[in-house]
């Protein structure tokens, strides 16, 4: 690549990198802070002495977590949930995206379906009807309730559909000439080419289900059935002081255990932090959305 290698250019590049590094550090700060708090001594944290360096380093919080049976139970429930959701989402989205990627010339009611999906993405009936629907479907307290309860992930369908739309037409046409039906085309041709976008929606699904906590609170009747984030939220959420229950009062000291909370938060983030770079390879390539020619 022809490029001017003048001093200005070098300075510009250096400054650029510097700026990037600053911004990146800014992003890592809160995570770092959480880690630091989780490793510090409780009293020091409560006294507000801890900022960027742990004070009185101790692994006590992490020890408590390891000894806490429920933490791992919830962890496992989240893993289960993510697994089922990923598999189901993968197939459903893939299947849906194909017909929707056709033009309305090739598939007459395509627009109808598409707008139906958009409508469902925007409108919802609220917490109470949702709960009642789940109840009548018998999905209260069920992991399938968590997996399916969020409804069809329309955004993902749109992403994959756009990707399909921008694949070269020749591929499909030659397959048709060979007499291939839609299923063959979808699974034999489109699917192998779609690794990037599929990896992308995989990441979205994993992150989305891993972090979701609210629906689980409504749907699950027992503490033991909570996925991880709901479980963590219970112990870290700011309690509404005017509506506090008798029980929590007594356990005053454990409620304000900021180090333990920080440790729980940090541990719950770890799987995502580990998985994500792994997928990033595909993820990065993936979201061209066919928008770039060449």
């Amino acid at each position, binding site marked *: 690549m022809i490029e001017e290698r003048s001093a200005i250019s070098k300075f510009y590049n250096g400054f650029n990198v510097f700026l990037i590094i600053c911004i990146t550090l800014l992003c890592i700060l809160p995570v770092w802070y959480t880690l630091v708090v989780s490793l510090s001594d409780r009293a020091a944290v409560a006294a507000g002495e801890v900022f960027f360096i742990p004070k009185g380093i101790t692994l006590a919080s992490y020890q408590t977590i390891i000894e806490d049976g429920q933490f791992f139970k919830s962890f496992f429930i989240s893993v289960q949930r993510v697994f089922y959701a990923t598999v189901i989402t993968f197939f459903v989205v893939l299947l849906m995206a194909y017909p929707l990627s056709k033009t309305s010339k090739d598939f007459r009611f395509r627009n109808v379906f598409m707008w139906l999906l958009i409508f469902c993405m925007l409108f919802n009936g609220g917490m109470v009807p949702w709960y009642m629907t789940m109840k009548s479907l018998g999905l209260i307290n069920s992991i399938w309730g968590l997996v399916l309860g969020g409804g069809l992930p329309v955004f993902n369908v749109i992403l994959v559909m756009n990707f399909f739309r921008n694949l070269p037409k020749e591929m499909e046409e030659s397959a048709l000439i060979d007499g291939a039906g839609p299923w063959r085309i979808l699974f034999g041709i489109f699917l192998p080419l779609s690794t990037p976008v599929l990896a992308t929606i995989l990441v979205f699904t994993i992150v989305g289900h891993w972090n979701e906590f609210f629906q689980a609170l409504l749907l699950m009747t027992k503490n033991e059935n909570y996925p991880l984030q709901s479980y963590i939220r*219970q112990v870290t959420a700011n309690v509404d002081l005017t509506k506090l229950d008798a029980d929590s*009062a007594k356990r005053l000291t454990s409620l304000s255990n900021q180090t333990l909370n920080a440790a729980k938060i940090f541990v719950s983030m770890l799987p995502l932090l580990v998985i994500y770079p792994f997928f990033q390879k595909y993820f990065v390539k993936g979201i061209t959305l066919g928008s770039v020619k060449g």
Partner: protein
Amino acid sequence: MKKSFKILAISLVAALSVTACSGNNTGTTNTGANNSNTPAANNAGSGTGESTVDPFAKYDEPVVVSLGRAIDPTYKYEGTDTAEDNLYTRWLKDAYNIEIKHEWEAASSDYGQKVSLAIGSNDLPDAMLVDETQLRQMVKADQLADLTEVYEKYGTERLKQIYDSNPGLLEGVTFDGKLYALPETTLPSAPLTWIRKDWLDELGLPEPKSLADLEAVAKAFIDNKMGGENTVGIVATQQGGSLYSTFLSSGDHFLNLSSVFFAKDAYPGIWVTNDEGNAQYGSTTEETREALALLKDWYANGIIDKELGLRKSSQELITSGQTGIFFGPWWSGYNLMDAIKSDPEANWRPYAAPLNDAGQFNSNQTTGSSYIVVKKSYENPDAVIKMMNIHVNEKQESYKTAVGKEMTSQEIPLFLIMGHGDQLEYAVKTTQKVLTGEIALEEVDKLNYGFTYELASHVKNVKTEPFDNYDIQYWDQVTDADFFQHLYAHLNGGSAFVDADIHWVKSLATAQTKTMQSKWSNLKKLEDETFLKIIMGSAPLEEFDTFVEKWNQQGGDQITEEVNELK
């Protein structure tokens, strides 16, 4: 914080229940016998003719009570026990054939959401605990069982006694002549001024009595940097908190500015009677205006935390020793444990101050919070009454020997604080007397005041001489660490409260009127915004007058009329 308040309460009733049973043997003598009334019923079933129903009879067939429960996920049960299946619930099944099931559980922070959902979707458990707003919703939606008869028929003497000693309580949950809930008994609570006495001593200052005194003390603390470079004078409301308790939510006056208002004879947030004898909203009175003027002044001079309403956690300032003054109820002692741990010399003492110009100590009365409700279609509301009977009365010998562990609200379903109106006073006074040896431990009324007995039996381990000095150095924090916090809170905080001569002002209204339902959130927003801005200096004091005008225009007038009709 309501939570600390409840520490006492839980322990109180829990221990009351536990110890009550130890004072009882085969059931011929029971708590009922301790009153002047003849017992209405007792375990042996020898009814005295009040009714043919034995409130303590074991059911022939198991009766299932399905509950919605708030639980604490960090609570340690005995062995593999859970909230649904533990020593207490098993005993309930064995002794009374009452089977507890949990229809759903939620952590305290999400419990309200779950209840709201249950109400909204009309999918209710047999019984659960709710707050006042939820109670009214359920009454409106006709979802509740009428408990009037079952209460009369099945309630024990003791239960009725407890409610009688707390006047107005049952009336509050009676709608159209029907009893729709079993309310919790609450103790009125007033905010005390908590000060670092060691700082006062160091600067040679006397304990403050008036607002002017308080101002001087705060100033001295700041000028002398007693809490370090960034000493804060008075710490109060944090982000998300309120400036004072209101008639709808109290927060028990913890870490807000109620005290300053009270000392100016102002009662914002509740409904008072004005000079003409009519109801008026406290926040629109002249006195409130003056209190705001004072607070504005204080803030400008740095007396009050500059980050009023912004601070992430006011508690942190206390724990880290950066401030020496805050306002809180008698049980604030519990919240000081962390502070004392990080600085064993921190000598926090409460004072029944500031007094108003006439030397009086004012306070408004806080409102209750929890109610047991039973759903309309439940076939056995008597089972719930029975559970309450059991809760407030003694338990059988078998339970006592089987258990031996203090039962808390985690084990006991439908837990409410049920006590005589004077439980705190008794606790404080009696413990003091046992400490000095004036009365013997055995003389403590274990039956009615179980927790006091607990306190009294540990007090000698925790308090050193001189017995009537509650400064921090005269406590043994180590020997009996668990009870240190209880005794510290009760004796240090509790005594100041109990000994204080308090002028109580009660709110004329304790729940929403019709117009409030659609206008109150708007009016409240106007109030909160205006007041905070006035204090912090971003609005002039005259803004208050504009506020009163707008408030009346936007529905306040109408609401005031409605409250007038309540009187």
